[in-house]
């Protein structure tokens, strides 16, 4: 295997032979390689975040018709490095009455939970951290750990805004875990394994074609898990002034910040691995370095959509967010799970294209029916509301009478 076809395996083999030549026993050589690999992957992910923060600020500027960072270095690319250096030298302020252990543990947990997901994602056909058989379950469990970090931050800060942010985490992030877990069941069902390597290599046809509804629900739930713009109730600046991280300063705040940006990219990475075929593409088995490129392109597309949603949609109210989850996404995820199970079982086995067509058709039917139900629900609700609403006068002068509510024809 040459260096250009598969650089990571090449370097790892070279290091392994080097260590064995030095007289290190094979077990210890493996152990040292594991430590080096894990360190390189997690450090690389953190350093990559510096680029991601710049990218998101620049793109956000473009979406909102601004220039974005443009002073430090070409296109402002060193802006984040300058910010990092500054945040490193900022004082830690521990508020009066806070719980010191939990207060310091929370940012570490939030960051570690995002980093830990990278351990199981296959980056190409030969390069992956760990090929455990319960990869999907591991991702869900580790994601819940990050929520625990945010809850701890809200509770330990001894601040009512932070506590409110923590409450909202309990309500929102935890609720959106339900459709996320339910939709991840569909690829597991189609593959017959929970390992992410198996899921990726089973996708001769991408799972987004066999389960588009599940992919859509998973995408929305992963944006909400990230507490990004239409769902950014947890750190709503204009309501609860940044919520759970209000009392944090210096690099402790920086850890929450980095974790947030890295989480957005990681969510796109999981989506690309589970629904868009991961590293699969023409020639990716022969030249694993190409697999990196395919995965990066797919992830970048999903990430770009996430950012564009973040910068174009306004924030929802808390009751709307909860109703959207429990009354729409969760039933939709349940129905899509059941329909996939039944349709896939009732169609004759062995005929790949027939199953693909059947699943796609069933998903389209689910989507259209769900859409009709929601519009019927809204029409009924608007009829109830019409009695109360109507043009209201902003200021009433003495001469004019307030306008009567006008009946609107639907």
């Amino acid at each position, binding site marked *: 295997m040459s260096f250009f076809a598969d650089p990571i395996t090449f370097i790892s083999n070279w290091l392994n032979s080097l260590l064995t030549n030095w007289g290190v026993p094979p077990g210890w050589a493996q152990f040292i390689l594991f430590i080096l*690999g*894990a360190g390189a*992957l*997690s*450090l690389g992910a953190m350093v990559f975040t510096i680029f991601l923060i710049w990218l998101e600020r620049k793109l956000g500027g473009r979406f909102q018709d601004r220039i974005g960072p443009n002073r430090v270095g070409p296109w402002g690319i060193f802006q984040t490095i300058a910010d990092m250096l500054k*945040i*490193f*030298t900022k*004082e*830690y*302020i*521990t*508020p*009066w009455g806070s719980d010191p252990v939990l207060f310091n543990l929370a*940012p*570490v947990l939030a*960051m*570690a939970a995002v980093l*830990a997901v*990278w*351990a*199981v994602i296959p980056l190409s056909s030969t390069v992956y*951290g*760990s090929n*455990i058989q319960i990869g999907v*379950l*591991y991702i869900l469990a580790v994601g819940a750990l990050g929520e625990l970090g945010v809850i701890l931050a809200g*509770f330990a800060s*001894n*601040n*009512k*805004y932070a*506590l409110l942010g923590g*409450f909202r985490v*309990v*309500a929102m992030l*935890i*609720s959106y875990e*339900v459709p996320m*877990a*339910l939709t991840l*069941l569909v690829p*597991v*069902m189609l593959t*017959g*394994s929970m390992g992410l390597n198996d899921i990726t290599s089973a996708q001769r046809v991408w799972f987004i074609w066999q389960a588009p509804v599940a992919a859509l629900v998973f995408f929305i739930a992963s944006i909400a898990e990230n507490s990004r713009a239409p769902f950014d109730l947890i750190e709503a600046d204009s309501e609860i002034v940044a919520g759970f991280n*209000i*009392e944090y300063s*210096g*690099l*402790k705040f920086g850890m929450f910040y980095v974790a947030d940006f890295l989480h957005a990219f990681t969510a796109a990475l999981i989506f690309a691995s589970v629904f868009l075929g991961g590293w699969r593409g023409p020639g990716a088995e022969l030249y694993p370095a190409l697999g990196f490129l395919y995965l990066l392109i797919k992830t970048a597309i999903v990430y770009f959509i996430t950012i564009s949603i973040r910068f174009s949609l306004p924030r929802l109210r808390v*009751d709307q967010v*909860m109703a959207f989850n*429990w009354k729409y996404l*969760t039933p939709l995820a*349940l129905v899509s*799970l059941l329909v996939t*199970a*039944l349709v896939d*079982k009732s169609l004759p086995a062995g005929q790949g294209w027939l199953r693909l067509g059947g699943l796609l058709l069933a998903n389209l039917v689910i989507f259209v029916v769900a859409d009709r139900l929601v519009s019927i629900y809204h029409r009924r609700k608007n009829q109830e509301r019409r009695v109360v609403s109507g043009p209201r006068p902003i200021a009433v002068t003495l001469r004019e009478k307030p306008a009567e509510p006008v009946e609107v024809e639907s």
Partner: protein
Amino acid sequence: MLHEWLYLVIFLTISMFIPAAAIGAAALLSPKKPSPLKNSIYECGIETVGPSRIQFKAQYYLYGLLFLIFDVETVLLYPFAVAYNRLTLFAVLEAVLFVAILAAALVYAWRKGALEWT
């Protein structure tokens, strides 16, 4: 197989260690000048009234309970999903029945108004 778990343990340790080390390094670099005013709780510039960790709203607790039900359900469904390719149609119908019972729980919570934000 044991190697994979060893790698996972190493990775988890390192991913906890790196943020902790960064925070510790920044603690060495940063100035330390606490004062009572600086360490007071940040709330609109007015001093906090009463304890901060208060009971707030029971609705959050209801959502927590619902989450517990559905998360346990989903974890129980994962073995079914892994074995799905080897199952007969009858076994799949049993799983459908299992999900339907829990969907009935969702409908019950909905009708009782547990999902309304009041």
